[in-house]
């Protein structure tokens, strides 16, 4: 199949898009340079998945969305993201490419915490955004999709927590693609300064079963010395969306970055979750679950690269495959020369529910230092008939027994999600996908 690599939007379109939003000159320039690079750069090459003929380039680029006056004024599927009895204090709801609702606790504001959409951040906190935007974590020129992302970024949020500020209440972002055709080129930038602490959770949702579109998401998470970031996500793009999602963390001395990702898209998906543990004593726990169904093809890479001495990395991936879904799990632990005392553990498990489903778990350890500990486990298996027999011997129907085993299989990761309401919502999505 001939691949149409021509990009749908040109320089003048991008100039105008940027001008309309009064973006700083550097941002406009970054976009235009990125566009040029996107023309010539190749698509990424995820291990064992051919994405050459996936549509990443043809889409409608912008749509606005109406604002809402209160959180109780939302459709049920969006209300599922929070506890209506106990509404979140810190939330941004992006509807298509507009901010439909945003609020941040006053006390946090006074402490200098920033939690706002990316366009507002570019206006009000230009220097901070400029300091981090596609600099230390993700580069524009990694491949065609990062360049395309930089050129056409049309949404996202900026989270900034100043030095010594510890936030207990989570920050929550909901990215609601109401328009079934519009692409989401979303940029999430999270910066935790020295000795700060935060929990951030994001939800992506769309409903385009028939209409084809694209999500191209780049997330950069920076944890300075002693900072602690707990990052949760539930991705739930409908079957029509082809997704590239790149979530990358950088941790400095004694920093912690924990990921809990519920990757529940129904369309084809390439997901990279990479963390660089630069600082001594830095820690990352990367947890991810997925359920594949229909004919969807997904490729997940979880990678933690360690430079810091005594750094600790844990990767835990769980996937359930049904129908004709195909999923590749790559878990990569990389310990660089000099990272003495580093530890890297990874476990990837895939549960197959159908003969036609395909699942592959590839554990990879790349170690360039002697004084380290590392281990990996990977398995692809089916539901154990002895477990079903045991559960059924207590009167539980086969269907319910399978449901319990599947939820149980995913639970070690689901349990990591930091917000109870989001955990519950992820369980509902899993329920819908497995039944």
């Amino acid at each position: 199949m001939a691949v149409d690599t021509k990009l749908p939007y040109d320089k003048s379109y991008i100039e105008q898009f940027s001008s309309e939003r009064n973006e700083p000159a550097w941002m406009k320039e970054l976009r235009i340079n990125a566009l040029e690079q996107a023309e010539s750069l190749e698509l990424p090459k995820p291990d064992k998945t051919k994405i050459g003929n996936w549509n990443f380039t043809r889409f409608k680029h912008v749509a606005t969305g109406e604002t809402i006056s209160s959180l109780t004024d939302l459709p049920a599927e969006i209300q599922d993201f929070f506890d209506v009895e106990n509404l979140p204090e810190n939330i941004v709801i992006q509807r298509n490419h507009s901010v439909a609702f945003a609020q941040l606790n006053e006390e946090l504001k006074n402490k200098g915490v920033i939690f706002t959409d990316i366009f507002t951040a570019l206006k009000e906190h230009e220097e901070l955004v400029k300091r981090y935007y596609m600099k230390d974590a993700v580069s524009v020129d990694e491949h065609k999709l990062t360049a395309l992302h930089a050129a056409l970024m049309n949404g996202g949020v900026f989270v900034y927590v100043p030095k010594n500020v510890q936030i207990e209440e989570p920050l929550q972002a909901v990215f609601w693609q109401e328009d079934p055709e519009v692409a989401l080129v979303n940029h999430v930038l999270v910066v935790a300064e020295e000795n700060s602490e935060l929990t951030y959770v994001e939800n992506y949702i769309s409903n385009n079963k028939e209409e084809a579109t694209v999500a191209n998401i780049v997330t950069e998470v920076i944890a300075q010395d002693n900072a602690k970031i707990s990052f949760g996500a539930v991705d739930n793009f409908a079957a029509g969306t082809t997704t590239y999602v790149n979530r990358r963390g950088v941790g400095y001395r004694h920093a912690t970055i924990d990921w809990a990702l519920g990757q529940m898209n129904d369309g084809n998906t390439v997901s990279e979750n990479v963390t660089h543990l630069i600082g001594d004593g830095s820690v990352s726990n990367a947890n991810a679950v997925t359920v594949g169904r229909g004919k969807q093809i997904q490729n997940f890479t979880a990678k933690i690269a360690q430079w810091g001495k005594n750094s600790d990395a844990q990767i835990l991936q769980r996937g359930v495959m049904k129908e004709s879904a195909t999923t590749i799990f790559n878990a990569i632990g990389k310990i660089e020369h000099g990272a003495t005392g580093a530890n890297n553990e990874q476990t990837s498990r895939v549960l197959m529910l159908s003969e036609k489903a395909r699942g592959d778990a590839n554990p990879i350890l790349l170690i360039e230092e002697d004084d380290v500990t590392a281990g990996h486990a990977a398995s692809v298996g089916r539901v154990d008939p002895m477990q079903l027999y045991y559960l059924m011997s207590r009167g539980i129907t086969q269907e319910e027994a399978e449901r319990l085993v599947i939820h149980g299989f995913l639970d070690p990761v689901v349990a990591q999600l930091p917000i109870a309401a989001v955990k519950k919502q992820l369980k509902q999505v899993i329920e819908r996908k497995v039944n």
Partner: protein
Amino acid sequence: MAGSTLEIKNLHVEIEGKEILKGVDLTIKGGEFHAIMGPNGTGKSTLASAIMGHPKYEITEGSVLLNGEDVLEMEVDERARAGLFLAMQYPSEISGVTTSDFLRSAINARREEGDEIPLMKFIKDLDKDLDYLEIDQSMATRYLNEGFSGGEKKRNEILQLMQIKPDIAILDEIDSGLDIDALKVVSKGINKMRGENFGCLIITHYQRLLNYITPDFVHVMMQGRVVKSGGPELAHRLEAEGYDWIKEELGIEDETVGQNA
């Protein structure tokens, strides 16, 4: 009629083409406690598994009736809901499913949709049984049998028995791996079930369990059959003298299932 009746008639069972049970006859009624003893490899667990519907066992002849209904026609979960329970010799570990969630599913499986057990009542009942069996509250939120010690698994089986309240229970080596205190506690749980609506088949190797739970009937299995039945005194004699005298009496040289008398 008070209590249920489980009738096993001329039961023949094969596993992977090999005949293990060669005509077992046994009837258990509500209110009765039966013990089955017998050397290793004589078919005791096979009998228990075949009654419950373990997928690997094939029934080639005979019948199992619960209150006159054909158990062998039922799926495993239907057998359980009809009133049967098997405490397994080697319970499965179910990762990610807490003991409490599992128990609630098991209890609700016996109730109509819309008539699920109220959460508060469930928690209260569960706490009571946990206390009774001297099980730490934390077990309720631990994943079912995952990382449980041998003794904890056995206690958990009895917890399930008390929560589910079956009509007829089969307990396969519920005493194996238990320390003295645990043995007492587990026995206490089983004895609490006693009553005219509860019948029990206890598979064990040791009299020490039967010191706490006095059986009404004792049966000995050899070569895939019940070869001798009696009262509690039979278990005492086995404890004192072993099985040789029975083998002699019946002219059995090798008691395992591969052999025929």
